[in-house]
């Protein structure tokens, strides 16, 4: 199962409204993505929690519909 990049972005931004999301389709197959998510609301949260919030935003699709998402998170400079 594959997922479109803009669908991923929409889901993340719906759950984390202050997020800036950049998505790269690594293999061009709609199944291997790299996402960079930057949000002010991540400030003060442990990295594992930041990633968990992104996975929650994807609502169970991670590991099923979406096999490979290389994720990095951060707060704005």
């Amino acid at each position, binding site marked *: 199962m594959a997922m479109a990049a803009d669908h991923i972005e929409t889901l993340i931004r719906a759950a984390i409204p202050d997020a800036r999301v950049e998505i790269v389709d690594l293999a061009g197959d709609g199944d291997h993505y790299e996402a960079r998510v930057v949000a002010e609301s991540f400030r003060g949260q442990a*990295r*594992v929690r930041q*990633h*968990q919030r992104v*996975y929650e935003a994807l609502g*169970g699709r*991670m*590991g099923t519909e979406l096999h*490979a998402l*290389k*994720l*990095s998170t951060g707060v704005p400079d």
Partner: protein
Amino acid sequence: MTEVRERIDSIVGKSDIVLFMKGTALFPQCGFSQRAVAILDHLGVKFETVDVLQDGEIRQGIKDYSDWPTVPQLYVKGEFLGGSDIMMEMFEAGELQQLLEEKQVAKA
């Protein structure tokens, strides 16, 4: 469900560093697992691996245990640290080396 949780408790309690992965350290079956192994090898620490492909109960159970949807998963002294992306981010920032030193994990 409780039984799986107890099995995982016991596994992560037995060694300083445990990596739940697809495949083995010598023959990882997924790029993310391979990357996680490479980082730990590079750091020269002693670690145990659990191949989730060999154990369906653990494969699902580990995701519920940590509320984390994917494998690999790294545990240091019983505590869930994250997946391969977090390992890489922490490694590049020098934070992983620092954390392992602070936790005084066994060297390889």
